[in-house]
């Protein structure tokens, strides 16, 4: 078990992809720390599932773009376990609207959570990883950040910026044994996908070689690869997990 007793911090942990990643690391014997912002009920469900499986999980409630909160979480984790092996920046939100009708607030909210949140968490985590001389940061982006998507200028720009941040961090820290990568999931079977209109979904699948939605567990598999030793020469790249989506 590659990740036995490793300490893994996952943001946006309570649902969808974040939840699947948490359970996958728990199955590997890791200690999982999760950040969530709102859904206490989902957090408790996750805790229950993890503990039933004999896993170790610690949950923190707060915003990833609150620098003070993020700093306290990392400090607490490091003081408790003495290590921080992997950070998965998974927290993200959408607020879709055509750009010509988009309000400033809609733009700001999405950039704030997705981009500033990733910056805050990465900045804090990397200081501990440098101290221990190793670590991995995995940023969850989206195919929207690669191909663009109508009504998602805010979301796409935030995810594109995170792909750029991934390159920047890799340039700075790859030579110090810190693996920084991104994953761009295509259409994954999560709550976010349920809001996609049927016609759009059909069109999306028509352009996907696999001909089906991906699962959160398949994205979690990719995280296992990028966070572990098999990806030791993988730096700054974005790995698409999209079933062969072409646009």
């Amino acid at each position, binding site marked *: 078990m590659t990740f036995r007793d490793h300490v893994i911090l996952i943001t946006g942990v309570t649902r969808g992809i974040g939840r699947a990643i948490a359970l996958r690391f728990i199955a590997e014997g890791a200690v999982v720390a999760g950040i969530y912002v709102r859904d206490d009920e989902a957090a408790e469900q996750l805790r229950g599932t993890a503990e039933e499986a004999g896993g170790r999980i610690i949950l923190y409630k707060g915003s990833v773009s609150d*620098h003070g909160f993020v700093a306290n979480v990392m400090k607490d984790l490091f003081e408790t376990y003495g290590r921080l092996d992997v950070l998965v920046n998974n927290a993200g939100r959408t607020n879709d609207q*055509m*750009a*010509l009708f*988009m*309000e*400033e607030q809609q*733009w*700001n909210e999405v*950039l*704030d959570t997705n*981009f*500033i949140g990733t*910056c*805050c968490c990465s*900045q804090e985590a990397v200081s501990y990883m440098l101290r221990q001389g190793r670590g991995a940061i995995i940023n969850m982006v989206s195919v*929207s*950040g*690669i*191909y*663009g*998507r*109508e*009504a*998602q*200028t*805010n979301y*796409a*720009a*935030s*995810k*594109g*910026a995170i*792909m*750029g*941040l991934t*390159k*920047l961090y890799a*340039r*700075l820290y790859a030579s110090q044994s810190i693996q920084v990568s991104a994953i761009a999931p295509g259409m994954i079977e999560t709550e976010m996908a349920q809001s996609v209109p049927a016609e759009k979904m059909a069109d999306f699948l028509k352009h996907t070689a696999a001909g089906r939605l991906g699962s959160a567990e398949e994205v979690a598999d990719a995280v296992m690869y990028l966070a572990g030793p098999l990806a030791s020469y993988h730096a700054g790249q974005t790995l698409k997990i999209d079933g062969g989506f072409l646009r």
Partner: protein
Amino acid sequence: MMKTAFLHHAETASGTATALYLLQRGIRVTASFMVPEQAEQFRADLPPQWQEQIQTIVAPDVQMKAVESLITGSAEQMQGLDLYIHGQDWVDELEALKHDPAEFALKSYSLLSELFLYSRAAGSVMARKQRGQIIVPMLADSLHYDGFPSSPVYNQGALAFVKSFAKELSPFRVSVNALTFGYFRMEKKAASGRNNRKPFDIYALKPPVPELEELAHGLGLLLDYGHGMSGQNTTWGYGIQSVL
């Protein structure tokens, strides 16, 4: 045919080169600067034959209503807005990140917000007229190891914005494209002939290395043919990859 253009961030070196190129092509230009001194200096340096062709404004504001008003007002004054170019200072993001990560995050955020607000305002004017082009120039990120300022966060975020916005404006026949410039001759690294070309062998063998002013001519590709393409990232330079 392009007759009117709004150029944002004309105070930058690439912005100035762009402004001169647009003027050479006979385009009427509104050029925006961050502070009045920059606008005054630009005007003072401009040959007399172009003085009538350009309007300089100071546009430090990045509030939605103010930006809308600025772009709409400029379009009215020029009696049209065929082209919007979102110039940007080419920032060394790695140095900025090393120096102050929190400040770097906020600065990157504000640059992307500025792109959104200005492009949105220009796109709105163009959509009503059912014609126009928006161009977002950037400097190739791959030049990082060659001593150029490299901005992967801005470039990648801006490109994702360009691709998304292009999809939305296609019904209005407004095109939105990025133009990525390659290497050019930097003053501080001035060298001649072979020595000047050798560092770029990784891109193409002893490629020609243009002056910054010559780079701006790459815009001609989009000015002349850009109506037939949208959501693209065109690169200008020997051996520069079109995928970021």
